[in-house]
């Protein structure tokens, strides 16, 4: 323990703590910009400077460790002046377009400007001028709004280990960009959107589909159907000041109906369907000697990563489409036929916590007769904006239920939104399929939580099934090496590109605190616990779907509609 004084308060801090952390532990807040929790400090922005007795200059508190007897002042005229100057200089080299900015009222630069009372332009000079990169289907990059804090760079390199963007050039011309300043669409980017979540301004943002969805909703010929991903219901409430981890399913359904969607279905239905297909595929591979281990295919970011970097393992990936694509495909085949609607008139909109899903919905192979399975994808953040535009007061909405038959789901589907969830859901069904008896204890605690790689062995009948869950694409490297060397002992591996799973996806409400993610996860596990049925094979609508349409899991028809293929894209991206 180290004892120090901060603003006259005696603080007992652990050795190795930074001044910033010590101050926070006693309720003293110091502003930060470049700081990211759990990553090494860079001390780049200097907004966190404090005065330390005996030091000549100001010290960045995010990078300076506490020492015995240290006397720190976090708020003095000198500190305030320094911070204000930093904010003023940043603002002067930033577009003055807050009124029409997508991050208006949700911008850290704006907050700091308010906090330090910036009321005039004191430094007028040359401002940087960069083109917006709209090349990718999921994201936009607006370097003119970048304040060079480097958080996106560190998330991309250190957390996700992709390294698609970095600082280039120097001084006034310095810019965070891709190699050769090319479009994100031809870079190493997997479009996971983790950089959007940490961006303090609007330099990184999703590509909005609100306009095209609104146009479809006003088009009388179109039969608009919405579907909602599991992770959205656990996070949307945050944007309406509800407590963290509030389940807003009922409100969400009403809200979407009021936007004009004819039907509101649940992606969880398709999650159950995915489990039926994926568990059957896994059992087939184990019993008939297919490529093992098998990887999950729910995460399009993960798929994009493999196609660009490790095409050698493509045959290890389950051929199942991701749940929302399955839902779309079923809507435009089974449901259209059943209801007598022309599939060409159906417009499927997915509400997703994910930016990559936008790219995924554009993939040519995820379509039938030149009609995409899913027509548009809205992220959680876009939906909030759409509600605002449509004058829907979310907090005061009555609750309502999903439409049927594609709205019914089990608890197993709800946990798809969190890391380890797909695995858990698949095991529940695989157990039944192999042994013919139901699993008694449904919770697999070993594969829950935020660890990077979670491994376990599950005894199913006579078979010891070895499983692994990769939480965040940054942790997938060693697992992939094992698979390529043929030394992998696993049978089934789940990979989610975002740390924590979809619940922390790139389309979720902007946040900076990891504890928020944990609360969202709890909401999903609670939905599972309280669900009437908790195993995908018990979903009555799914059973009916198989009886009326597909026959059985992995049937020829199911393969045609619910499965897809992957391509070696290394040549496109690495040359």
């Amino acid at each position, binding site marked *: 323990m180290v004892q120090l004084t901060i603003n006259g308060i005696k603080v007992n801090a652990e050795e190795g703590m930074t001044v910033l952390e010590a101050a926070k532990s006693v309720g003293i807040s110091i502003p930060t910009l470049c700081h990211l929790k759990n990553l090494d400090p860079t001390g780049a922005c200097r907004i966190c400077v404090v005065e330390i007795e005996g030091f000549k200059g100001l010290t960045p508190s995010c990078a300076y460790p506490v020492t015995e007897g240290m006397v720190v002042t976090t708020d003095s005229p000198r500190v305030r002046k320094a911070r204000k100057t930093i904010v003023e200089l940043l603002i002067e080299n930033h577009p003055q377009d807050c009124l029409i900015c997508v991050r208006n009222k949700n911008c850290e630069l704006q907050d700091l400007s308010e906090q330090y009372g910036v009321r005039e332009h004191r430094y007028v000079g040359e401002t940087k001028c960069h083109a917006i990169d709209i090349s990718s289907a999921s994201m936009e990059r607006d370097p003119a709004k970048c304040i060079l804090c480097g958080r996106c760079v560190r998330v991309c*390199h250190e957390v996700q280990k*992709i*390294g*698609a*963007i*970095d*600082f*280039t*050039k*120097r001084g006034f011309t310095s810019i965070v960009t*891709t*190699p*050769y300043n090319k479009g994100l669409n031809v*870079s*190493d980017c997997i479009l996971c959107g983790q950089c959007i979540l940490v961006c303090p301004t609007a330099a990184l943002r999703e590509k909005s589909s609100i306009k095209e969805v609104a146009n479809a909703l006003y088009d009388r010929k179109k039969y608009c159907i919405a579907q909602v991903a599991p992770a959205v219901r656990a996070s949307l409430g945050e944007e309406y000041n509800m407590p963290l981890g509030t389940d807003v399913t009922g409100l969400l359904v009403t809200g979407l109906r009021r936007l004009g969607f004819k039907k509101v279905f649940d992606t969880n239905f398709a999650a159950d369907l995915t489990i039926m297909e994926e568990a059957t595929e896994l059992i087939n591979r184990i019993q008939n000697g297919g490529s093992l281990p098998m990887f999950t295919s729910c995460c399009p970011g993960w798929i994009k990563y493999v196609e660009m970097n490790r095409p050698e393992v493509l045959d290890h990936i389950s051929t199942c489409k991701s749940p929302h694509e399955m839902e779309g495909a079923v809507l435009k085949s089974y449901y259209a036929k059943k209801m007598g609607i022309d599939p060409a008139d159906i417009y499927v909109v997915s509400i997703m916590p994910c930016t990559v899903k936008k790219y995924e919905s554009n993939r040519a192979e995820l379509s039938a007769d030149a009609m995409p399975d899913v027509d548009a994808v809205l992220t959680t953040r876009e939906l909030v904006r759409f509600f605002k535009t449509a004058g829907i007061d979310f907090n005061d909405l009555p609750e309502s239920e999903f439409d049927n038959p594609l709205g019914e789901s089990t608890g197993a589907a709800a946990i798809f939104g969190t890391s380890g969830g797909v695995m858990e859901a698949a095991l529940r069904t695989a157990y039944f399929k192999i042994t013919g008896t139901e699993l008694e204890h449904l919770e697999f605690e070993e594969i829950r939580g935020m660890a990077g790689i979670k491994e376990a062995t599950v005894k199913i009948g006579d078979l010891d099934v070895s499983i692994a869950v990769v939480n965040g694409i940054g942790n997938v490297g060693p697992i992939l090496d094992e698979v390529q060397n043929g030394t992998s002992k696993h049978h089934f591996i789940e990979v989610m590109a975002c740390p924590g799973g979809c619940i922390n996806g790139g389309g979720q409400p902007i946040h900076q605190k990891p504890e928020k993610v944990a609360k969202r996860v709890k909401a999903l596990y609670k939905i599972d616990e309280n669900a009437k049925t908790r195993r995908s094979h018990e979903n009555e609508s799914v059973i009916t779907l198989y009886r009326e349409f597909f026959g059985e899991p992995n049937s020829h028809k199911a393969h045609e509609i619910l499965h897809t293929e992957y391509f070696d894209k290394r040549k496109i991206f*690495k040359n």
Partner: protein
Amino acid sequence: MHSKIFESYQPNDRSALIPLLQDVQNIYGYLPENALRDISDFVKVPLSRVYGVATFYNQFRLTPLGENIIRVCRGTACHVKNSANILFALETELGITAGQTTRDKKFTLEVVNCIGACSIAPVILVNDDYHGRITVKDIPKILKKYQTVKKTETAEVMK
């Protein structure tokens, strides 16, 4: 052509990045994109970071040099003697900005901080020739001289 340079380095060693970049530049006179990709694979550093390092340091260039290199001194003495105008005139005359190469690959225009010839300010250096106390009017004449001149040594290295 540059595959030999990797022989003297350990793979996956990040600290070899800058020496490797220097070696590649010694071969080609600049850093071609495919060489950066090979270096990125060799040292296991993302291409974005390799590119970041290559654009950070002034010693590295990403485009081939022209036959003649014009270095405009923008040091203090030359600045006082209106070297900003000289630079502007050169840019206008060549139709490029500092750091670029003309389309016919004849001239590369660069800015340097001081070439240590303050007594003859404002000064420009074309290849190895100093042109001191010049005015804007002298520029077309100087350029014309090098339009027809044979390839210089610097250009020879590149071949």
